């Protein structure tokens, strides 16, 4: 069902633009800069994320990670530079077309209205239905399957206001999944998750990448998890990307020490990287 959808989507895109290169990067940032009033947050950032890759964005607080993710999600307009999605400028997609391809999970997801978790996940289907059409049984199946993929199906009927922070994060990720995107942009999706759910989320994202080819770019401070979960790591400092590459290249004493301005130590053992910082 999913593969059908992506095939039609691919042919549509090919139909529109014969130059689409299936092996090219899914999303590409070219010299992005952005400043809040006059405070620069992202300065001349370029990056490429291949199709179906799991990318991670690390860096100290205030280094511009969230701003970069918002730029890539199309929520902020860059002061200069351009985002290229599927070989076409991201700005050429209207909001709803963009929402079918790129899903964004914000950092905070608090709401005052007691929506059920299922209602929240169902909003992820809205790009696919019209202004005056309600979600169909099919949409509901997809929403439930999305919760299911994160082992959160038991939350479906619960009120979002009664859930713990971590459960709410799972529901928000499920909504992103219900958008059936090609790219998921996650802003600290695991910050409130306990060890079990953190592992479960990483496992689910990896499964989605393997089974459906969904690419992921997530901000995280959990460096230990990255080693096993991420294909690519981008490290930001002061609005710039200072290092990028596979985990073993970025998760080193030298790079991390520079990124965090702190004495970070790493150790490789059993094919895993252990990260800690000296007091």
């Amino acid at each position, binding site marked *: 069902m999913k593969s059908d959808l992506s095939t039609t989507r691919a042919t549509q895109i090919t139909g529109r633009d014969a130059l689409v290169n299936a092996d090219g990067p899914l999303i590409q940032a070219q010299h992005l800069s952005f400043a809040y009033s006059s405070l620069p947050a992202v300065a001349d950032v370029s990056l490429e994320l291949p199709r179906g890759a799991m990318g991670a964005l690390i860096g100290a607080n205030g280094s511009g990670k969230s701003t970069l993710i918002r730029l890539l999600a199309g929520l902020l307009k860059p002061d200069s530079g351009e985002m290229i999605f599927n070989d076409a400028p991201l700005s050429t997609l209207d*909001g709803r077309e963009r929402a079918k391809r790129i899903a964004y999970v914000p950092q905070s997801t608090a*709401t*005052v209205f007691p929506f059920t978790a299922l*209602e929240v996940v169902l909003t992820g289907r809205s790009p696919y239905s019209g202004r005056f059409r309600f979600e169909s049984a099919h949409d509901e199946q997809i929403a*439930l399957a999305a919760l299911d993929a994160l082992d959160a199906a038991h939350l479906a009927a619960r009120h979002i206001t009664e859930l713990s922070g971590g459960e709410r994060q799972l529901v928000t990720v499920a909504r992103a999944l219900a*958008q059936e995107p090609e790219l998921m942009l996650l802003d600290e999706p695991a910050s409130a998750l306990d060890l079990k759910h953190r592992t479960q989320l990483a496992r689910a994202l990896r499964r989605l990448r393997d089974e459906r080819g969904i690419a992921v770019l997530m901000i995280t401070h959990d460096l230990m998890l990255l080693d096993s979960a991420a294909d690519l790591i981008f490290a930001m400092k002061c609005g710039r990307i200072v290092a990028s590459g596979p985990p073993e290249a970025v998760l080193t004493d030298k790079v991390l020490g520079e990124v965090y301005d702190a004495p970070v130590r790493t150790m490789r053992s059993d094919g895993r990287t252990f990260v800690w910082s000296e007091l």
Partner: protein
Amino acid sequence: MPSFANKGLNESDTVELSGAERHATTAKLSQSNQARVGVRLRVALPLLIIFLIIALLIGLYVGYQPLDLAALRSDPIARAVFLRLRLPRVVMAGLVGASLAMVGAALQALFRNPLADPFTLGVSGGAALGASIAIALGVGLSFAGVPLIFIAAFTGAGLSVFLVYRLAHSGGGVMLPGALLLAGVVLNLCASAGVLVIQYLASYGRALQILRWLIGSLDVVGFDLIWKMLIFLIPGWLVLVANARDLHLLATGQESAASLGVDVRHTERMVFIASSLIVGVTVSVGGAIGFVGLIVPHAARLVFGQDVRVLLPASFLLGAAFLILADTLARVAISPGELPVGAITALLGGPVFLLLLRKQQRYSAM
């Protein structure tokens, strides 16, 4: 490391267990269609229409003199009284109630605050100030000048919405519920101070007229005024309904809505204009009738759930029925005298507001 050796085993255990669990949940949920919004709306609308018809019949029947169907058929005076006084008044109550309730539901979604309402946000206050200025300048002396009052009240309402939004939305996309309500309170205070100054400066006759008008009444003779109102109200209603889906998405969070393709700025602007138009017109006719936009959407939420696409039409119908009944009560409570209907809605609305405030404190504590 023994902990790693166990890892594989534990993993498959968890997956199997939660797998069985999840299938049960999925089956249960898809069996009961309760969650489906379309279904909920199809249940809600007929129920509410029946309720509205009952309210209409009660409103038409009850009065200083109960409706006498035989007299209505034979006596032309009784017929004239019914057609030119009671029927228009009940229709007017319905229009004002429906309008205020739907605007309340829309503003609550837009501001993500269950305490938002034309009254608590100071929008009615702004409209009242605009209308008072119009009356003091003499443009409101006759009903022929009513559209000018509409425009003055619309301008006042629009300015208030804009100010409240700017005050509570000081950058960063985060809106503090407390800041929003405080901004509304301050605006209301400023607006009523403005009205006092105008009353003080205006001639005795006009000051009295402003006072009578501020108290508000749904009294109306014939349908002329109602047609004039509908010219402004219907476009306002349609804009709100057309934005129902985007308002629903906004109610779940501004950033999420934007990422789902909602043009947040555009939606905000459309809802602001439509709300100001509706509030301006209803306030310039019926005075500031408070809390309808607060009580009614809240009641609709309790019965029909949180989906804004259901809440807007549900609040519209329920608001009409509510104000018809409240106005009927106002007409007969101290018969042959009459209570201002705004007093009744405020007496009911105050406690509801306090209850909601308590509840919200609990939410925002998170």
